[in-house]
């Protein structure tokens, strides 16, 4: 499935909803769909806000594929060269820390299994891969610390 999206937040979410509908039709678990939707929202927003500077006249492409073993999302934009995979994960925030930066790519890393960046001619190509394997999905998230509750 190939989507041509304008560089606006509304178009990013149109892409996200299309992905969710497609993934549900493919029978993916809701937890996996949530993670894929979040990954596309974060990466699509990055393209719109930074690469294409919210210029609604500009477009970017999203390709969604589902194979036997993986769900693949590919984003392709004509913005300046930028490799989001080079971003460093933020450390846990301190009380007086400033506004979040780099949280988006951190979330994408946690909800996908592979992220690949390439510069293809004048285009950024970001490929997100989520292996469709429930046991692997559980393994990846089971050791997460629990949030504090009931102060």
């Amino acid at each position: 499935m190939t989507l041509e999206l304008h560089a606006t937040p509304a178009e990013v979410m149109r892409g996200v909803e299309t992905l969710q509908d497609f993934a549900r039709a493919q029978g993916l678990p809701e937890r996996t769909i949530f993670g894929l939707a979040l990954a596309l929202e974060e990466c699509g927003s990055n393209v719109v806000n930074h690469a294409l500077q919210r210029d609604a006249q500009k477009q970017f492409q999203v390709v969604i594929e589902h194979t036997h073993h993986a769900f693949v999302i590919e984003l392709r934009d004509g913005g300046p060269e930028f490799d989001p995979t080079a971003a460093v994960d933020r450390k846990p925030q301190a009380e007086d820390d400033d506004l979040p930066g780099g949280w988006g790519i951190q979330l994408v890393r946690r909800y996908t299994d592979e992220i690949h960046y390439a510069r293809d001619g004048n285009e950024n190509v970001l490929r997100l891969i989520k292996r469709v394997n429930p046991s692997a999905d559980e393994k990846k998230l089971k050791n997460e610390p629990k949030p504090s509750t009931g102060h």
Partner: protein
Amino acid sequence: MPLSIQIQNNSNPAHAGAVTIKLIGSLDTETAPELERQMTSCLAGPVNDLVFDLAGLSFVSSAGLRLFQVARKQMVARGGGRASFINMQPQVEEVFVIIQSLPGIGVFKDLEALDRYLATRPRPNLWPGTQK
């Protein structure tokens, strides 16, 4: 994916200055600006406890997390105020866990847990210009 925003002042005198923001739907790159507008207007008043009820929030991205962080900082700047969260759905809670986000923000299972906390904590300073 729309976002419904319902802002309610707490009528309980024991919780004067507390405001609940109930979010239903998706807090994302498209809907976050509207929440920011409404939150800014809300926080122009004498609010010293901000409670986000997330029972109906099915999706949140870093665009939404940024607003929660803004709320936290504004509450802290008011001298002991606090932003709290109740009724998080599991997938939203998982995002918070991944980010290990928002230190200084309280996460409570439900309204009763929040009430128990508020009943035992010291009263924060009120917004400048208001009576204590």
